[in-house]
């Protein structure tokens, strides 16, 4: 029995002129103990899906189950066994750190003491501030408290909706380290993120865009689906270089990636020669051309265009 199954879920919202379709028939399953990433921009449908799976929102059609329980008929059992960290900070701002944790433990008929082992490592980092009101915590500390509150009843499945959005690169790394320690304890996790680089930290990912899954695979599997050769190009005037490459009729796409541009050609012959010709004609200096492996972001963009 898979901890999460999603079958052809459709969700629409009423809008001024008709309806907005947030999820267009989504299906996937998550294995026990897996960190499964839902990767996509704002408005892709990530939060709608989280709310359906945590029994807070009804889908128009399709079905879904958590630990074998149906999200509609067995919603009470599901609520007992899942932890949910919403994208928006949703703890009681007027309660202290400790009071929030006690509140959530009590709601789930347990005590902090009973499941302290699970939250210990994370809680110890915010314990010096346990009498401080949650509303007065920094972003990083709020995030840790929210994770503790989502874990205090020892859930079997943990839902994390954009836990690292707006968080700096160092705190993001630390947060992922915490998730790995939870994975070791056998907790299954569905985590969403708009940061493509975090895809490589998941066991498997689903790329989601406009309510549709573009691909579901391991990070390696996703990059393996990228069939065309990918070139990295660098020269002295990067902005002009991009325009020159884009003007070339044989080029399919050219996107900036930090210090280099990533280029894909429509056909696969003489690609390097073509890039060298563009660089030569445009009188560029410090030209570097390399054949490279695609990353998740390359794949996401290619799938968006497909």
């Amino acid at each position, binding site marked *: 029995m898979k901890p999460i199954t999603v079958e052809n879920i459709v969700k629409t919202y009423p809008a001024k002129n008709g309806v907005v379709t947030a999820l267009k028939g989504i299906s996937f399953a998550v294995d026990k103990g897996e960190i499964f990433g839902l990767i*996509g*921009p*704002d*408005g*892709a449908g990530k939060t709608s899906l989280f709310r359906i799976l945590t029994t807070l929102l009804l889908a128009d059609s399709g079905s879904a189950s958590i630990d074998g329980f149906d999200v509609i008929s067995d919603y009470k059992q599901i609520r007992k066994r899942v932890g949910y960290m919403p994208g928006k900070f949703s703890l009681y701002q007027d309660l202290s750190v400790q009071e929030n944790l006690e509140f959530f433990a009590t709601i789930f008929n347990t005590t902090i003491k009973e499941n302290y082992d699970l939250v210990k490592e994370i809680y110890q980092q915010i314990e010096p501030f346990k009498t401080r009101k949650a509303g007065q*915590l*920094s*972003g*990083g*500390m709020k995030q840790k408290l929210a994770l503790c509150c989502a874990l205090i009843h020892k859930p079997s499945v943990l839902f994390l909706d954009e836990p690292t*959005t*707006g*968080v*700096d*690169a*160092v*705190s993001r*790394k630390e947060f992922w380290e915490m998730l790995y320690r939870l994975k070791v304890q056998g907790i299954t996790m569905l985590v969403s993120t*708009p*940061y*493509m*680089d975090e895809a490589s930290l998941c066991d498997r990912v689903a790329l989601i*865009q406009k309510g549709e899954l573009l691909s579901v695979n391991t990070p390696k599997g996703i990059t393996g689906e990228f069939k065309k050769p990918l070139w990295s190009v660098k020269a002295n005037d990067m*902005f002009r270089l*991009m325009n020159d490459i884009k003007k070339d009729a044989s080029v399919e796409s050219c*996107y*900036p*990636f*930090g*210090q280099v541009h990533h280029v894909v050609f429509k056909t696969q012959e003489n690609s390097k020669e073509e890039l060298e010709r563009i660089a030569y004609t445009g009188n560029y200096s410090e030209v570097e051309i390399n054949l490279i492996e695609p990353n998740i*972001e390359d794949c*996401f*963009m290619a799938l*968006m*265009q497909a």
Partner: protein
Amino acid sequence: MMETEKVISAKELTKRFGAFTAVDKITFDVQKGEIFGFIGANGAGKTTAMRMLCGLSLPTSGLATVAGFDVYKQNEQIKKHIGYMSQKFSLYEDLTIRENIRFYAGIYGLDEEQIKEKTAKLLRQLRMEGQDKTLVRALPLGWKQKLAFSIAIVHDPAIVFLDEPTGGVDPITRREFWSLIYEASARGITIFVTTHYMDEAEYCNRVSIMVDGRIDALDTPANLMKQYAATSMDGVFLQLARKAVRTGD
């Protein structure tokens, strides 16, 4: 007379809140037309520094000029000569695209003729002709951000401050947004940008990295990577940010 024009010049700029030093003697210059990345961990002091440079908060000590105006005495002049855009605050959702352009252009003192001309040009650049009567609320996030940026520079400011402009948008839109930044920079508008995406730091001409209120590193991305023996700006940032004593916002 060949010295490059400085759009920002800060010397030992400091802001204290009581006993807490949010910004600790930062010294740096930004040249005209430069894309200047301003990065740092949450709580490093970026927002406080930006507020002083935008004329919204008076420094405790130190000196700074922005677009040639003094941050202590001429902060009203500064506000007129800069543009500002953040992910959190940008456009009025209940106004149409045309009304938003008109509103901001009016705020910045453009006359009727200029507003008309700018509106047409802006709609053409963004390929939004024929959609000018659409409510901003109905636009996808990426379009909103591109529109917000174009409106932030509608009065041709000397410099535009972008506070995490690309949060949450898809990777293609994020890159289209950076194309707009390059175009503005090529027109001589200076760009001052904060971001959590380290690949975007690599698009900047120079990057400053704040740690605990100080600027601990400032150079071109290539030089920073060489100096810190890193293969990406992410590597540079992690080395510096891990030294931080302060935590959180």
